[in-house]
C-alpha cells in the first residue's frame, strides 16, 4: 500500500512535469511563431520609409504643379520665389548643382583614382596601415566642418589669387566637396582593383611589364566596372551634398557659368527655403518638394545605375 502510494505520487509528479513541459513548449512555440512576424513588422519599417518619402514628395509636388506649370518649372532660367511676381524655374539650381559636382569630381576623380592605385598596387603593408585610417578619418568628418573650412579658409585663400571672387562662390565649396569625396572614390576603386586576382598581376609582371604597365593595361581594365560605379556613386554623393554649399556658395539664383560667383544648388535651395519662414501652404513651400523630388529622382537613378554597372559589366575570373 505504502509503496503503491509512493509510486502513484511519483507518477503524478512525472505526469505534472510532462504537463508543465508541454505548456512551456506551447508557450515557446507561440514565441517561435510570433518572433518572425514581429521581426517582419520591423523589417517593413524601412519599406515604409521609402513609401513615406515617395508619397510625401509626390503628393506635395503634385500640389506645386497645380500652381506652377511643369514646363515652366523644368525649362525656366529665372528663379525668384520671393518677389512680387514669383518665377519658379529650376534650371539655375540644376546649373549650380552640375557645376559644383563637376568641380568636385575634377578634384576627387583623379586624386581618388591615384590614391586607389597607390594603395592597391604600390604601397607597402606598412604604408597602407598608416594611410587607410587617415583616409577613413577624412571620410568621417562631418560635412558642416567642411563647409566651415570652405567658407572661412578656402575662399579667403583663393581670393588672394582671384581678387574678383565673391565671398560666397561655387568654386571653394566644389573643391572642398571634392576632398570630401576622395576617400569614397579611393576605397571603392581600391576594392575593385583588389578583387582582380593576383595571378593576372603576376602573369603580366613575369612577362616583363613594369608595375605601371600592369596597373594601366591589366588591373584597371579588369576592374573597370567597379571603378565606373565608384565614380557614379561619387557624383551622386556630390549632387546630394548639402551643408558645404549651403554655407559657402551663397544663395544667388542667377543662371551663370562664372565659378567665382555665388550659385545655389538644389540642396542649398531646400535649406534656404525650409530654414526661412516659408509659411505652410504657400507656393514657395511647395516648391521645396518639387526641388527635393528632382533631387531624389536624380540620386536614385545614379545609385541604380552604379549598381547596374557594377553587376552587369563585372569581369568574372
Amino acid at each position, binding site marked *: 500500500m505504502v509503496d503503491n502510494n509512493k509510486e502513484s505520487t511519483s507518477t503524478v509528479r512525472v505526469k505534472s512535469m510532462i504537463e508543465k513541459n508541454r505548456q512551456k513548449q506551447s508557450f515557446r512555440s507561440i514565441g517561435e511563431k510570433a518572433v518572425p512576424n514581429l521581426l517582419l513588422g520591423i523589417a517593413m519599417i*524601412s519599406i515604409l520609409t521609402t513609401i513615406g518619402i515617395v508619397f510625401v514628395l509626390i503628393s506635395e509636388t503634385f500640389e506645386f504643379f497645380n500652381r506652377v506649370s511643369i514646363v515652366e518649372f523644368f525649362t525656366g532660367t529665372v528663379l525668384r520665389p520671393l518677389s512680387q511676381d514669383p518665377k519658379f524655374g529650376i534650371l539655375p539650381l540644376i546649373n549650380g548643382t552640375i557645376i559644383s559636382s563637376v568641380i568636385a569630381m575634377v578634384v576627387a576623380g583623379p586624386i581618388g583614382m591615384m590614391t586607389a592605385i597607390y594603395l592597391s598596387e604600390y604601397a607597402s603593408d606598412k604604408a597602407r596601415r598608416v*594611410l587607410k585610417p*587617415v583616409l577613413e578619418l577624412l571620410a568621417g568628418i562631418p560635412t558642416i*566642418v567642411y563647409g566651415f573650412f570652405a567658407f572661412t579658409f578656402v575662399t579667403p585663400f583663393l581670393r588672394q589669387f582671384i581678387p574678383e571672387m565673391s565671398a560666397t562662390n561655387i568654386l571653394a565649396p566644389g573643391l572642398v566637396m571634392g576632398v570630401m569625396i576622395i576617400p569614397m572614390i579611393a576605397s571603392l576603386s581600391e576594392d575593385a582593383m583588389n578583387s582582380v586576382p593576383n595571378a593576372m598581376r603576376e602573369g603580366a609582371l613575369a612577362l616583363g611589364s613594369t608595375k605601371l604597365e600592369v596597373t594601366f593595361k591589366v588591373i584597371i581594365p579588369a576592374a573597370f566596372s567597379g571603378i565606373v560605379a565608384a565614380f557614379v556613386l561619387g557624383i551622386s554623393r556630390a549632387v*546630394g551634398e548639402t551643408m558645404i554649399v549651403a554655407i559657402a556658395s551663397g544663395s544667388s539664383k542667377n543662371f551663370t557659368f562664372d565659378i567665382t560667383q555665388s550659385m545655389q544648388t538644389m*540642396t542649398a535651395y*531646400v535649406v534656404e527655403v525650409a530654414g526661412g519662414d516659408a509659411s505652410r501652404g504657400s507656393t514657395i513651400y511647395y516648391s521645396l518638394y518639387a526641388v527635393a523630388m528632382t533631387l531624389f529622382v536624380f540620386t536614385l537613378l545614379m545609385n541604380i545605375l552604379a549598381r547596374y554597372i557594377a553587376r552587369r559589366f563585372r569581369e568574372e575570373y
Partner: protein
Amino acid sequence: MATHMTSERIQKRMKRRVALNKGLSGVFLLATTFGVFVLGVLFYQIITEGIPYINLDFLTGKLSTNAERAGIMGAILGTLWLMAVVIPVTIILGVGTAIYNELYAKQGKLQTIIQTNIANLSGVPSIVYGILGMTIFANLLNLGSVVLAGGLTMSLLVLPIVIVSSQEALRAVPSYLSEASIGLGATKWQTIKNIILPAALPGILTGSILALSRAIGETAPLVVLGIPALLLPFPGGLFDRFTVLPMQIYYWTLDASLVEEYQFLASATIIVLLVMLFILNGTAIVIRNKFQRRY
C-alpha cells in the same frame, strides 16, 4: 642589322619605362598624401582658432548673443538627447531588420525587395530625410521641431548603415555554431538569442557606433526640420525644443561674416564635436579589435 629592335633600343626603352614607373609611383604617393595634407591644414586652422575659446564657461554656459559669454551647454545636451533617441530606435529597428533578412526571410521576392530598398535608401541625400521628418513628424504628427522628431528623422537616416553592418556581422557567425545549438534541441529563436546574437554582438556594436557618429554630425535634416537659432532653454525631455552642436556651428559660421568672433566660437564648437566623434570611433575600434573573434 636593319631590324627595328636593336638591343640598344630595347635598353633605352626599358630605361624610359622604368623611369616612368618610378616617376608616376611618386605622383601616386603624392596624390595619396593630398588628403592627409588637407586634413592637417583643416585641423591646424580649427585648433589655433578654437582652443583659446575653450574653457569651462564656454562648455557649461548658455547660448548668448554676446560672443564673449556664449556657451554651448544647450547644444551638448541637445546632442546627448538626440543620441538617447537614436540609439534605442536604430538598434531595435536595425538589428531586428537584419535578423529577419539574414535568418528568417526566405530567398525570394520579399527578401530581394527589402534588400534593394535598403540599398536605395542608403543613397538618398540626407536633406530628403529632413523633408520626410518635417512633413511627417513635425507637421503631420504635430510634434514640432522637438527632440523626438529630430531623433526619429536621424534614426531613419542612419538605419541602412546599422542594418547593413548588422547583417554582415550575423553572416560572419559560422554555421556550425547554430547547427550545434539546433542539434542539442534548441529552437530557432533560442539559437538566435543565445548563440548567434552574442557572437555577432561586436560587429553589430561597431556598426551601430559608426552610425551614431554619422547621426550626431549631420546637420541638413535638422535645418529642414526647423531647429531655430534662438536662445532656447536647456532641453530636458523628448518633447522639448533643442539645438545640437552641428546646428550651432552652422549658425555661427553664417554669422562669421558679421562678427569675426563667431568664427572662433564655431571653431571651438567644432573641436568639441570632433572630440565626441573621436571618442565614439575610438570605442568602435577598441570593440572591433578586442572582442571580434575570428572563427
